Structures are given as C-alpha cells and as structure tokens.
C-alpha cells in the first residue's frame, strides 16, 4: 500500500475534533472564509462567521470575540447541505426486512415514521461526511395513496436530532399498474372538497352560534391532517410525473389554497411557466434522463436549469437508494455542468430545501442554526472534501464505519484482521 502517513495525519485531526466537540458551549469564530450565505448578502470573501450556543450570532463583526478562532484560509464555507426524500434513519439495509421502518401496508395520512428514526444508523455518519447536515426523511408508505408524513433530522447522530416531525403529507399520484390514475386523483379531490365543506360549515355554525357551539365533534386524526393541509399548516408533497397530472394538482392548489410541493415532476419543463406562476417548488433528481415510463418521456439533464430559469424554486435530491444520498453535491455539480446557475444549484441543496419543507436552516445568516460546512474547495467538485462541519454549532466527527473497514484492511498485521480496530 502506498503512502500510509497521510491518513495517519487525518486521524490525528479526527482525534482533535472529538476533543473539540466535547467543549460544548464554546463560541467559535471562523475567519478568512469565502462564505456562500445563500441569502441576499450573496458570497462574502475573507469573511468571519461567529457561532455561539448553536446559532450564528454575527457575520463580519467589527471585532472578533470567541472562545476559539478557526482560520479558514480562504476556503469555502456554505450552509450544510440538506438531503431529502430518502429513508435515512428508517432503513439500515434495504433488503433486510427487520432493518426497515419506512414501509407499512396500512400506512395512511397519519403515518408518522419519525418515532422510528434511528440516529445511530450507519448511513448517518457516512452521509454527514458528504457535507450534509440535515435530512428530510420520507416514508414509503403502503397501499394508500397517502404514504405518510415526512420529518427532518439533523445528522449529528444525537437522540434528539429530529427537529421537525410531521412536516409534510406525502401523496403518490400518476400511472397505476392496476386501474386508472383518475381514481387517486378523484379521491384526493373529493377528500379536500369534503373537508373544505365541513370546515366551512363548522365556521358558519360557529359564527351563528358563537364560539361555544355544542355540536362540535372532534374530527378523526386523518381528517385533522386534511384540515391542516387546507389551513396551509404544512405542505402537500405530491409524487407526480406527467404534465397532465402536474396541471391537475396545480389546480387543486389554487382551488384549496394548498402549500404544494411537486416531487419528481419529470414533465415539469412542459409546464414550467404554470409551476412558476403558482410558486410551487419542484423536488427533483438532477441525473434523471432516461424515459423510464410513458409518464417520464421529458426527463433531461438540463431540466433543473430549465426550471430554474423559468422561475421555479428547484430542490435537488438524489434518486434511488438512501445509501447514495451522499452524492447530493455531485448531482448539483452535474446540474451546473448541464446549464444550471451555480448559485441556484447551491440554493437547490440548501435554502430551497429548507423553504420547501419549512425548516429553520439552510442559510448562513444571523439567528440561523449554525449548520455549516467548510470545504477544501468548490463543494460540487469530485476532488473537494469536507474539512470541518458544525451542526447546531457543534463540531462534527467526520469518520464512518467505512473508514474503519478501510483502515482495518490497509494496516498490516501478523494477526488476523479481526484484531485490527
């Protein structure tokens, strides 16, 4: 094996970090950084970011006062990236039934898998190493078109890392292997219509009878979730590909004043203007370019850039297995290579994700949680590495189970590998 000494150096850094993260409440000033704020402030050269008690407390203060000062040497500082719509923390090994908590045959609109989230999953330390500080986890659901509710967790491996539970209602529409796409679309429409009628009726009754109207029946849990959508309290997240289906859900949004987010949206470029006018974000995979079905004949590597140029807020996600979520930064790079504006691509993996799922993170701004990544260079480049990461102001260990396996098999020993730890 060649050049073992370099790795040795990086494990020393890891040890230093482990020590640092125990110094919990220390304030940190990161100086001399190229800061991508992903706010109107844009990109700041040679900037200083101060974090204290888990929050960003100052950017470019007149004087720096912090327990630790960290010189970034001009390197790139961004908000932590946010991966989404995968099963991180719910699935350890996809083909092992007893390691899966994202599927449930009877799952419906009330299914809240956040109670099953495992912050100690081996996916978390691995995903974190790719500059991802938070994740929006989505259930796979079951037979119902309602697949359940999404939740968001910080990827710090802590037991209290779920910071936004039940933050979106997931629905899958579109082509069906048995039956017609019309069935689910109608069922959703009718559910919204009926709930709206009931709410309107209750409001009328309340207005007529005064607030202490007696006939108030507690709505069922599933009804409460539909009501939450009608009140705009959380987004309706809709998996949908074909342009006709996109238009149909845009109409539902307008009619019922929903907070709508489109997922997948293969045909989105055909109706980009309508999506932009409706101010609906699109969560999509940047690399999707094969016409997998008759619902997705218009996928193209240029789609993310096209949608962005049309004025759509794009959120980039990694299609496929959750174990690949670490690819997010490279997918963003590919979006840029295929025509997306660089800063918009950066927003598509930070601020836009936070906005779509109503999360308080994804920007470097005073008052925001200190979820921050220091990169060796351009975060989208294959050659770039994560040098430092803070989640809620705490410095993170950047080592995974994979690193330990590599070390075990690249360290020579007279004893069997099992003794190398």
């Amino acid at each position, binding site marked *: 094996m*060649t050049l073992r000494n370099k790795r040795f150096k990086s494990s020393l850094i890891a040890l230093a970090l482990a020590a640092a993260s125990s110094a919990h409440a220390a304030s940190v000033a990161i100086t001399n950084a190229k800061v991508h704020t992903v706010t109107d402030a844009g990109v700041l050269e040679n900037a200083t970011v101060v974090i204290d008690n888990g929050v960003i407390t100052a950017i470019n203060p007149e004087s720096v006062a912090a327990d630790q000062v960290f010189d970034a040497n001009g390197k790139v500082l961004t908000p932590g990236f946010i991966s989404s719509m995968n099963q991180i923390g719910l699935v350890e090994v*996809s083909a*092992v039934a007893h390691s899966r908590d994202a599927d449930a045959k009877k799952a419906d609109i009330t299914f809240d898998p956040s109670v099953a989230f495992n912050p100690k999953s081996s996916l978390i330390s691995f995903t974190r190493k790719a500059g991802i500080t938070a994740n929006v986890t989505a259930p796979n659901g079951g037979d119902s078109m309602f697949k359940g509710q999404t939740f968001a967790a910080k990827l710090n491996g802590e037991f209290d890392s779920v910071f936004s539970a039940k933050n979106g209602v997931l629905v899958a529409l579109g082509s069906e292997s048995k039956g017609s796409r019309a069935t689910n679309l109608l069922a959703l429409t009718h559910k919204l219509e009926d709930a709206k009628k009931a709410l309107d009726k209750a409001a009328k009754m309340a207005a007529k009878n005064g607030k202490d109207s007696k006939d108030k029946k507690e709505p069922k849990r599933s009804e409460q979730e539909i009501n939450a959508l009608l009140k705009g309290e959380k987004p309706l997240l809709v998996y949908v590909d074909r342009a006709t289906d996109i238009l149909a859900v845009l109409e539902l949004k307008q009619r019922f004043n929903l907070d709508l987010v489109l997922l997948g949206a293969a045909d989105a470029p055909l109706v980009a203007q309508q999506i932009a006018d409706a101010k609906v974000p699109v969560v999509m995979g940047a690399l999707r*370019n094969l*016409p997998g079905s008759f619902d997705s004949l218009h996928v193209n590597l240029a789609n993310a850039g096209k949608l962005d140029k049309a004025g759509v807020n794009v959120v980039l996600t990694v299609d496929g297995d959750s174990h690949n979520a670490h690819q997010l930064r490279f997918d963003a*790079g590919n979006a840029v290579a295929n025509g997306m504006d660089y800063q918009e691509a950066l927003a598509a993996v930070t601020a836009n994700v936070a906005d779509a799922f109503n999360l308080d993170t994804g920007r470097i701004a005073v008052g925001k949680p200190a979820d921050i990544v220091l990169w060796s260079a351009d975060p989208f480049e294959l*050659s770039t590495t994560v040098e430092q990461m803070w989640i809620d102001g705490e410095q993170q260990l950047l080592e995974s189970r994979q*690193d330990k396996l*590599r070390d075990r098999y690249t360290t020579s020993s007279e004893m069997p590998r099992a003794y190398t730890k």
Partner: protein
Amino acid sequence: MKKLMPSLVMVAVSVALTGCMQSEQQDAKVTINKNPYPSTYQTLPQQTTLIKNATVLIGNGERLDNADVLFVDGKVSQVGQNLAADGATVIDGQGKWVTPGVIDVHSHYGVYPSPSVESHADGNEMTAPNTSEVWAEHSVWPQDPGFNAARAGGVTTLQILPGSANLFGGRGVTLKNVPSHTMQGMKFPNAPYGLKMACGENPKRVYGGRKEAPGTRMGNMAGYRMAWAEAAEYKRAWEKYDADYAAGKNPAAPVRDIELDTLKGVLDGEILIHNHCYKAEEMAMMVDLGKEFNYHSGTFHHAVEAYKIADMLGENGNCAAMWPDWWGFKMEAYDMVEENVAIVDAMKNSCAVVHSDSGTTIQRLNQEAAKVMYRANENGFALTEADAIRWITSNAAKSLGIADKTGSLEQGKNADVVIWNTNPFSVYALAEQVFVDGAKVYDRFDENYQAQSDFMLGQE
C-alpha cells in the same frame, strides 16, 4: 436355448459393426457453429483525424501534455508532438483532454431498456438456476434510448449481461456503442462471449423462495459443481467424438446440448466468466471452483469486498469490477469502502475495473473513477488521472478479452476516442466528441451526430 438367442445375435452384430467400422464410409463430421449470429457491424463514415495540443491519457498509465493524436483508417496511428497528416480533419484540442473510449463491462441496456415496462423485462431468465443456454444478445432491443445517453458520456463499448437471479444466467455479449436497428449491427467483431454467473443472495432468494434448490449459499456451490461436472463430461464426449472421427472411425456425435455448449466454451477457454459476486469469502470459493474444474474464474462483478482479498485476486489473475460507493441495499453490499478500487489496483498483477450496472451511472463512468481516485488520495494513495482512467478503459478491455483491439490509444488499436471539454475527473467535464473506429458517433455541438432512438422519435 431360446433365452440365449438375443445375446448371440448381439454379439454377432457388435462383431460385425466393429469389423466394418474401419472400412465404412464416415458420416459427415458434426461440428457446432460457434458464431451463428455473427456481427454485421460496419464502421460509420470516417476520415483521417488529427487532434492537436490536448492533454492525452493513453489508457496504459501514461499521460502526455500538449500532445497530438492521429487516427487513420479507423486505427490509432500516432500519439505524440507536432504530428501532421495530409488531408486530415484537424481538431483543436487546446484545453481539452483526450482519452480512450469508455468501456462498461456491466450493462443491461437493451435487455432492461427504457421505458422499463413489462414487455421490456428481457434480462433475467428466472426459470431455472442454470440457464447457460440463454444468450443476452437474443434479448437486446437496439432502440433502447440508453445507448445514446451513454454515448454522450463517452461510452464506446459495453458488455450486455443477463441478470443475476441464476447460478448461471446465460451468455453476455459485447457491443460497440453505435446506433443500429439490429443487435448484430452493434456486435463487437470477434469479442469473446461472457458467461454470467451469480454468487450469494440472489440465486438463493429467487429459488429458495420457491422451495427449490438452491436455498442457501451451500446450495449455490452445489449447483455450480453439479453443472461443471456435467459440462466436463460433455466436453469429454465431444473430445472423444473428435478423436474417434480423426482416427477414421464413424462415431455417433454426442447429443447437442445448448446449455452445456456454453459451459464447455468456458472449459475450452473461449468464453470468459463474469461473476456477480460481492463477498470476499465467496470470491475465494469461486476461485477454488475454477481450479477444481480447470477453468479461469474471470472477472468478479460488484466485488464490494474485493479489498479484503485484493492480494488473492492479483495472484490468481482475476479482474474485479466495482462501484466506487454503492452499498447497503443488501447485506452482501454492507461492507463497502470508498477506496475498494484503489486497494485492488495497488496489488501486483491487478485488474481493477469500475463498472456501472446502471443506466444512469454508465453515463458518468469518468466521475465514478474520479470519486475513487480522490477519496483514495485523501487516504494515503497517490493516484493520478493516468492511473485511474485505466479502470474504465484498458482494464475493462482486459476483462472483456478485447484489450488487443481497444482500451488504450496505442498504435494499431481501434480509434475509440473521447474528447472531453476539460479534465474528465471534474464534475463539470462533458464529452464533446466521441469516435468509434475513427468514425465520429457523437458531437455535443452538432445535432447531426446526436442519434435518437425510434422510440423517442416524434414523442411530444
């Protein structure tokens, strides 16, 4: 008395047969046509081409800066400085990088094409644990839009394999990535066939789930051994037939068995093994299996744990075809390390290959190789682009048995060439022009060289 009659007759008959055999006219020799679906591939219109002043990765570990690449009559003619050629089409390579055409040793394009509708699921003959009789080429739909997408990613050659449900999945076929409306029009002339085998979870899940053998890993091994034992007998029967015939006898030819033809082809050294096998301990057993039945165990595909047995792979001359970072979708993929390819590559006599098994990542094998290179270099390796390009060019060609024809920009090799707009190990790199046998088959800036499948034509 009566009882004796038949045996006496038998003796008389056999004496008569033996007696006249030497003098009897021989029947026509029974031979097996080993190439019944021959390639009809024709080079596309091509001309003498000279790429000037590019960064050139030869594919053999060498890198040349400010170098020229000349191809004539579809072959690499020269790579060096200050080249000139009469009547050549000159391409300014300033700032650009040139590599051999990318080769994917593991694709299911055509047999699992887009759109992935029921009628198109033609890649996995999940009807018996041994289906050595099926040939992937008989399932290939040349109109799969994926072929065109991969060409835009620099892929000039790819092996189409059957799936991994079976212990023996059938024959794979190596194709040139040129548009054609027949499979034969893409078939790489004189490339050896591959036999797809599969270790581990898939066969035992598919058949065990039906309460058929194999239901366990030991059942898998038993299935391979039974099949090879049968193939060895079949081979002996043919050899005996050939020898007897050559000796002037008129022997009956063995009964033709299409399944055993494939296994015999492996034992004869004509067909290469491509073995879906993730785990270290299983690969070690497959190496021993090859020794037990006297064939070479070939290339291990999806070799997630190759790093644990990298030395053994080198010593035995196996290639390992790997992903940079796919993991966790099943137990046999749990022990991934991002440096797997680099660890295998560091061994003496190694053959590390980066493969896709994916309609998506096949379009970016350069990035797949780049991920390995950079992650390995962060952890103590000192790999260069010239090293890493071999994982998707010359080593892949070696795995497919076509390294004498393609995989590097050495004189006399097929002019399978990619011009990249920048360092292909950048996330922003795009293939600008792609050549197969010196013919331009893709140009990012010229729609005349952007093929479209029949399926996508006229879709609104």
